[in-house]
């Protein structure tokens, strides 16, 4: 029974307590770059979830085989492998999304979340907890990108998922789609999460 609870805990922590961009301040680059629309944000989140899950599984399975000295190099190769797969998959099946995300898909390779989870969790834990950890973190990350996307798309275009919600009376705030707006929205969301959890987010980029 305790096992199940543990698994649930590993899953749950990524959703709020350690939600990657807002609490751990990890994966900031895609959080800012591809959230000018909800679709892009979610697509990016799912691509990251895929890489996170597959790399966590692989790292967890190989954890007893890979010698400590070369583990980072090995993980980086594994991550780059799955990122390339994800990138080719998107380019082959969803060309418009692949185009919109551009170089930010390959940049998942250096997304701190992935290497961070491999290093901090998967290499020390068996398969099941590692899967739950990846799912929780990945879903938490996807949710965060979706929230950013909703705010920026709503104010920037007056729509959500390309469905116009705000009428003609609303003059879109172009700034929301621009870099400046991305930083400011992110900053305010971090403040909001700080306020709600009464704790301060800290950069733990290694």
């Amino acid at each position, binding site marked *: 029974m305790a096992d199940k609870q543990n698994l649930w805990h590993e899953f749950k922590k990524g959703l709020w307590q350690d939600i990657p961009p807002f609490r751990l301040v990890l994966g*900031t680059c895609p959080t800012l770059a591809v959230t000018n629309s909800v679709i892009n944000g979610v697509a990016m989140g799912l691509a990251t979830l895929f890489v996170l899950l597959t790399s966590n599984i692989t790292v967890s399975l190989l954890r007893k085989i890979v010698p400590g000295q070369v583990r980072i190099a090995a993980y980086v190769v594994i991550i780059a492998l799955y990122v390339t797969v994800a990138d080719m998959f998107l380019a082959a099946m969803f060309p418009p999304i692949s185009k919109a995300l551009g170089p930010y898909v390959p*940049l998942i390779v250096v997304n701190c979340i992935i290497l961070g989870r491999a290093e901090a969790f998967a290499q020390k834990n068996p398969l099941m907890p590692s899967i739950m950890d990846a799912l929780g973190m990945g879903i938490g990350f996807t949710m965060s990108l979706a929230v950013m996307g909703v705010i920026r798309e709503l104010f920037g275009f007056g729509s959500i998922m390309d469905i116009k919600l705000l009428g003609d009376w609303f003059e879109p705030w172009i700034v929301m789609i621009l870099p400046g707006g991305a*930083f400011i929205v992110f900053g305010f969301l971090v403040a909001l999460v700080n306020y709600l959890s009464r704790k301060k987010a800290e950069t733990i980029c290694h």
Partner: protein
Amino acid sequence: MKLILIFISASLINNFVLTYFLGICPFLGVSNKTENALNMGLATTFVMTLTAAVTWPIYTYILVKFNVPFLEYVAFIIAIAALVQLVEMYIRKSSPAIYRAMGIYLPLITTNCAVLGLALFMVLRDYNYIESIIFGFGTGAGFTLAMLMMSGIREELEFADVPPMFQGVSITLIIAGMMALAFMGFAGLIRG
């Protein structure tokens, strides 16, 4: 002339941190002191210039020639990691003073997405060898500039009465947003 344009574009108009959001991690993490920010910026600039110099031939003479484009990301990240390792070893031996200043930042640079981003953009934009190196250098200069500005502001902020919930990462991001608004003034500075 084109080289100057590439430099200005990479450092000011399309500043990696403020328009492409690359290198945000060190931008948030190491910008609390001017001295640290400067050292981090210089180390990154150095690695970026080298990265451009190394990944360009790898891409052109290995990946393209042998028709294995799918190895691009793997090859780039390994090249960057190896490069950083070599630079670290070299500096440790040749100049302990520089090593003390930059050493702790070097390992961080491997996972700085700006460095991999640089290699990817370089390929996307079809730069030739010299252009790539200038692009790498300009990107590093722009990164250093943004780091310096931010570190100065953050040192000043130590005395400011920022609301508790906004302290730390939050206010830093919002200041970055303001800097991005100011950098919009450079837009359009270069046209074909």
